[in-house]
């Protein structure tokens, strides 16, 4: 009997020495216009960019074009990168800008009645096999739709991607204190909205049965981490 193997996602990307080079070397190669550099940059950062965009826009969203936009923007603007070591932060910053731009575009389209919602929600396809989880995702992204573009980008970077406050502030081109203040407010607001969502409330008891969801121990640790993130932002705000 032939063994079924999950779809392989490993593809050889010729990038020469750049494939194993550090970010600074890759940045210099991009700036110099080396032909292998775009492939190497794609291989290194496209998973992260793709993940960030998917987490931002949620189920049913095709983000391939946005990933392309991010890299095209990277290739155009990399010449202005002052610190080659900060290539990853630079990519994150461009991704955040792309997120904000796309969210604003969708909001405008919604205003002129070209689409139904910011997330243009559709029935999730194969990303989440559990029906309850799919329903919870749809409800959660409907809540995120109520945030403005900057708040939503900040929420994604901080709580989905786990970036440090300084990284979030740099990506959004705001000060660290402003980033903290915004994140505290956003956390509280999203918490309130989640509490009031009946779909999410009914999902909570069955969360343990959702595939791919971490075990309870891991969940507690993650909760503590998230709470500490939010608390850190709140304390900073109180001191101010």
């Amino acid at each position, binding site marked *: 009997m032939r063994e079924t193997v999950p779809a*392989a*996602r*490993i*593809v050889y*990307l010729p990038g020469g020495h750049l494939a194993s080079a550090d970010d600074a070397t890759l940045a210099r190669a991009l700036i110099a216009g080396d032909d292998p550099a*775009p*492939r190497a940059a*794609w*291989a290194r950062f*496209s*998973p992260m960019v*793709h*993940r960030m965009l*998917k*987490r931002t826009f*949620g*189920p049913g969203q095709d983000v*391939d074009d946005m*990933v*392309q936009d991010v*890299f*095209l923007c990277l*290739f*155009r603007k990399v010449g202005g990168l002052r610190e080659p070591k900060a290539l990853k932060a630079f990519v994150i910053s461009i991704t955040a800008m792309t997120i904000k731009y796309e969210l604003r575009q969708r909001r405008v389209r919604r205003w002129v009645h070209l689409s139904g919602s910011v997330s243009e929600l559709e029935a999730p396809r194969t*990303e*989440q096999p559990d029906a309850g*989880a799919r329903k*919870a*995702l749809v409800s*959660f992204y409907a809540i995120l739709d109520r945030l403005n573009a900057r708040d939503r980008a900040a929420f994604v970077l901080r*709580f*989905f991607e786990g970036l440090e406050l300084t990284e979030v502030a740099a990506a959004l081109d705001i000060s660290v204190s402003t980033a903290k203040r915004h994140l505290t407010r956003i*956390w509280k607001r*999203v*918490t*309130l909205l*989640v*509490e009031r969502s009946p779909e*999410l*409330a009914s*999902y*909570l008891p069955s*969360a343990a049965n*959702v595939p*791919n*969801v*971490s075990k309870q121990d891991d*969940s507690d640790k*993650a*909760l503590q981490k*998230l*709470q500490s993130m*939010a608390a850190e932002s709140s304390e900073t705000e109180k001191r101010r």
Partner: protein
Amino acid sequence: MNVSTTQREGERLLEDVVQLVQSTYSETLAVGDERGLARLEQAWHRSRRPWSELAGLRVFAMALGAIALIVGGVSVYRRADLLTYRVVNGSVGSGGFVHPTGVGTTILFSEGSEISLGGEARTRVDSLTTDGGRVVVESGTVHARIVPRKHAHWTVEAGPYTIRVTGTAFKVHWSWTDERLEVSMQRGSVVVTGPLAPSGVTLTAGMEMTANPGTGLAIGGGDTPRAAVPGEPAESEPRTRSGGARSELSGSDVAGAAADEAAGGERGLAAEAPVADDGALDLGRGTGTRARATGRQRSGMGQAGHRGAERRLASSQPASGSRAGEGWDKRLAHGDVQGILADADARGLDELLQTASERDLSALADAARYGHRPALARRALFGVRERFAGSQEARNAAFFLGSLADDAPGAGGPTGALEWYDRYLAESRGGRYAPQALGRKMALTQRLHGADAARPLAAEYLSRFPDGPYAAAARKLSPVN
């Protein structure tokens, strides 16, 4: 449940959802997306195309769009702004002819111009644009009052003649019976072109013009005419004042040129064109008098007077010196007839017949015809036919040789003219001058051999050129009548 507990539950719920999102979108994606990478590289190469190239394409596309908009806009505007007309004391019948129903039939145009019809006039408005129109006078007399407007473009067609109008008042009479055109100017100016004025004659206020194949072109009153410069507005043309001189360029005067030819032709080539002291050109040479100056200094004009008049003539003509480097065809288009003839005299006809190009030789023949030097015209036309046999100019030369023979009995007379017209019609059945050649042949045949002999030609003419310049004469001859 206190607030703290509720908040903790909310945070736990949010944490669950965040974990759900992280786990749902956690796999390492897109590394293997070769298609995405290929698209990215294509986009990368496109983005590296020179900006100027992209800008050029964009500018080209924008220009195309702008042109399309302009063309569409102009088209809509022109359709919306075409002139219209209405008829007072008349009606518009089939073919657009205006039929008088009472006294004082007048065509009133929407921009204010008027055309009044005489009692027997047969007139139709052929076409209208935003800036003018084309009115055809089939016969009779019309009185036109055209409102001067910027870019106005009116033409009145009478038989084979075209009267180009900008803003003026004038009277036109045309008769197919004797092929006679009469134009009487009241104000403004017009340019008349036609068989007897191929390069155009400018008429200004007070002038009168009569054109008829038998009597030639006669212009009197007002200012002396001059050849029209193509493309130049009639009003802006410089004028040669002659104090009411009347120039008569008649067919009978061509007899002088025949005498030139009989005397060897070259005498005429070497002769200097005498000019009246008041600037009116006396084209008389040998026994012929082609233009009469009625100015007070006509008599007693001496050599000094001739030279002084030559200077004035030079100032009134297009500057031949400044056009010395141009081809004769271009100089002819600018009306530099005398300059061409002077150049030909200076170079010698024998050499010219051997060396001049086809276009220059044809232009010389035309200049000689316009300058009433038929001997020179004939030699130039023969030169064209000998050296450039088979060419369009050589075929056309047959027609002009026929017309010269028709006008000058010494050059073959009507019989010779008939032979040339036959030759032209044989060589150029569908040629530009075929209607005139066949019509003249018909008229000459009638004159020489009677109406019965001319009737087959009339029938042929009507079948080939039912709207031609000799159609009226042919109808009179046709058996139906």
